[in-house]
């Protein structure tokens, strides 16, 4: 018999600090598989956020730099403009990209920066203890929406993929999830495409990944993975939101 599944080379051998069933480590592995297959390890520069994935540099065996909360897209812009040969990717949570970082993200996309954004949407602030996120669902209980998110007082969950699709410089935006084998395979393909868009200098690419957070959703890992389908995809539908590339190579 031969080995058909093994750890990607660019994933360091450290034990993940993430909770049992967390989506972060699945996505880390997929990104590393893509980095291996597309031969990007020497040129990649990754930008993790504050939050649970602040320790991403213990797992990705590529150059990485921490950014201030929400500013990843601006840091990525600075890196890519000063050193265009780098393959630059941000790895951001929902607070980071959809809350404090909206201005930087929208404007990096508007300028069509050739960067790849990986946006982890788990509808809650994990690292700080389970507060509301911009993507928290209506009625969802968190530590700062103890009565359930009230859309009149606290607004609706924000759909960053749809918002960014309106921006001219955004070339490719897809929403996927890492809560089932099928979805995990689709997530990997989306990540591959998002890096290819950067290599082809076609503009800003983002993959929004619905990810389970069993600890702060107060569910078991299996229940949390099911909740992504049962509840999150009703508000955040999966699929390609924008693909300007397709029309370009449709001939």
């Amino acid at each position, binding site marked *: 018999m031969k080995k058909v599944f093994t750890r990607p080379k660019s994933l360091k051998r450290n034990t993940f600090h993430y909770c049992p069933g967390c989506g972060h480590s699945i996505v880390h592995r997929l990104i590393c598989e893509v980095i291996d297959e597309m031969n990007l390890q020497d040129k990649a520069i990754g930008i993790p956020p504050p939050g649970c994935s602040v320790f991403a540099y213990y797992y990705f065996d590529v150059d990485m730099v921490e950014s201030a*909360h929400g500013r990843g897209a601006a840091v990525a812009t600075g890196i890519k403009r000063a050193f265009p040969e780098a393959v630059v990717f941000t790895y951001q949570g929902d607070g980071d990209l959809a809350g404090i970082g909206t201005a930087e993200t929208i404007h990096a996309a508007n300028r069509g920066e050739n960067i790849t954004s990986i946006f982890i949407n788990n509808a809650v602030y994990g690292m700080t*203890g389970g507060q509301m996120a911009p993507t928290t669902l209506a009625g969802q209980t968190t530590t700062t929406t103890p009565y359930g998110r009230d859309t009149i*007082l606290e607004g609706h969950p924000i759909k960053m993929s749809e918002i960014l699709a309106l921006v001219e410089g955004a070339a490719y935006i897809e929403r996927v999830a890492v809560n089932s084998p099928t979805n995990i395979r689709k997530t990997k393909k989306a990540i591959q495409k998002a890096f290819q868009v950067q290599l082809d200098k076609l503009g800003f690419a983002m993959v929004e990944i619905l990810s389970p957070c069993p600890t702060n959703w107060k569910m078991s890992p299996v229940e949390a993975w099911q909740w992504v389908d049962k509840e999150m995809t009703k508000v955040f539908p999966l699929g390609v939101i924008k693909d300007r590339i397709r029309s370009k190579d449709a001939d």
Partner: protein
Amino acid sequence: MAKVLMTGNAAIGEAAIRAGCQSYFGYPITPQNELTEYMATHLSRRKGCSFIQAESEIAAINMVYGASLVGVRTITSSSSPGISLKQEGISYLAACELPAVIVNMSRGGPGLGSIVAAQSDYFQATRGGGHGDYRTIVLAPSSVQELADLTGKAFDLADKYKIPVIILGDGILGQMMEPVEFNHEAPAELPVRRDALRGAKGRPSKFIKTFTSNPSELEEINWSLFRRYELIKRDETAYEIFLAEDADLVVVAFGIAARIAKGAIRTVRTEGLKVGLLRPITLWPFPDEAVKELVKRMKQFLVFEMNMGQMIEDVQLALEGKGEVFFYGRPGGVIPTPSEVARVISRLYYQKGLSK
């Protein structure tokens, strides 16, 4: 009322509500999340009150600016990196003479730093912090009870002097649980501040601004702010003196460092060392006069802070060269123990020949 056991963060929230605070605008950051969460639970559904977990700390301070403008008591909280974000907003509040309470439960820095207590935001708090010539009152509690008491006082001072007030706490004070008593009930309704902007009905319209194209106008605004700061210095400086009446050496420390120092001082006192403590409670205005009084009787000052040396400059300025100043500090969120500080005090005491 009875004493209750609460974390420092929650005690701030309860004290603010009882002081008639009607709005809280904040953002999650460790180690102050229990305060944001307390307000989400207890303020958000109170009649006439509002709670917003804003999209960022910058948004939150600008929401505070708006709420203060229309005359309600308002508060925001964060920790070091988030307080850095608020500096522009605080400069605007000071320029417009708007009252507000800003809580900083400091953590280690610089950068993302650590999530545990440090005192490295002293300069940021006491020197204005943002751009321009201005000051904010800075209160430094050192117990959960004092957090509660000074929160109420902060709102009163902010309203009285039309100035932002910073409560400079830290991660230990925020997370520790101690018994606390609240000295007054929340008012049923607090009157809207007299000079608030609420629509020009029945009076000429007015505008609030901080920009001027006339430098002489801005000069006069600056002088006028500083005249008020002189009044605050004269009337609101607060500090505690502990066992310093017969001391040969005085430790100067604030906040949680002062708690640790008290433990160290009690230890060295049992060995016969005559050591006392000066604990500034207002960091701005700094208790210069207390230092000048003490230096008439003793010459050795040991400044103990959990940073690389910030308050030490204010002690040196107040002494005007009349005493000797030494420093012991641990930055980054490392928490020194009372026995460690006791050893530092003893060593200095004997090196300086004070036991003779």
